[in-house]
């Protein structure tokens, strides 16, 4: 080695920065409906969900999107570090009246811009091992 300078990279692409699981039930959906103002009946009435051909009462896509970013927010500590957040809703989350549903979130560094001090965090969001959000990405100012 010609130099004893060491460049320290605090993060690397592929690092897992946060992981969490959330158990939701019908009460969670009612709570989200009230908090958000989204009272679409497919999120609380089995008969309505069935009448439009759904496999059951579904979680609001925005509930799944909203909770999936929380592990990242906790890791960042400062919510102002969230610059951009996007998802595609690829698979509905059916919430069983008795057993509910369990949403697992894994947040991995997908891209780094060390000069700008920013990074892209890729979220893998699954229910029973099946991915429910596509291209779920959070652009952040790195802590």
């Amino acid at each position, binding site marked *: 080695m010609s130099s004893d300078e060491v460049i320290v990279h605090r993060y690397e692409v592929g690092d897992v920065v946060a992981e969490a699981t959330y158990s939701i039930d019908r009460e969670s959906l009612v709570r989200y409906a009230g908090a958000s103002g989204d009272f679409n009946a497919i999120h609380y009435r089995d008969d309505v969900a069935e009448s439009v051909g759904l496999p059951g009462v579904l979680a609001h896509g925005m509930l799944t999107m909203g909770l999936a970013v929380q592990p990242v*927010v906790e890791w960042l500590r400062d919510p102002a570090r969230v610059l951009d957040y*996007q998802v595609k809703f690829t698979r509905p989350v059916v919430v069983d009246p008795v057993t509910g549903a369990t949403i697992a979130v894994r947040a991995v560094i997908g891209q780094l811009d060390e000069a700008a001090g920013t990074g892209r965090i890729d979220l893998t969001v699954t229910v029973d091992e099946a991915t429910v959000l596509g291209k779920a990405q959070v652009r952040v100012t790195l802590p």
Partner: protein
Amino acid sequence: MNPDLTEREFEKTSPYLVGREKVREFSRAVFASSPVNFSVEAANEAGFADVVAPPSFAIVLQQLTLDQLIGAEDAGIELTHVVHGAQQFRYTRPIVAGDELTAQLSVTSIKTLGGNAMITAESAVHDIRGEHVVTAISTLVVRGDA
């Protein structure tokens, strides 16, 4: 689906005052656990004027503008045929309790795909000083049998 929607200038929504208890209620509903979402003291220590809303809270503002879009008599959009395809938020700063926010909609694209229409609706949210807070972008899929 009315293709002229992309040229329409929608009215700004009337000011929405972000309430402290609404932020706490929304935070609980999305399983937030950061102290800044609940505690004024923690928010102040972190440099915010009041409790901070979670990133997805901006959907509440965008919903007001989507109601204008779906409610427009000539839009040709039937609510029961609308599916939320994708969502994005581009933040300048987080929303905090006490903010008075207005949102203005523009329909940036309408694509027809195999009988379905895909609408991209962009809602720019500004505070009372006219400064940008967040832009919320919804992709709505409208099923063609509408």
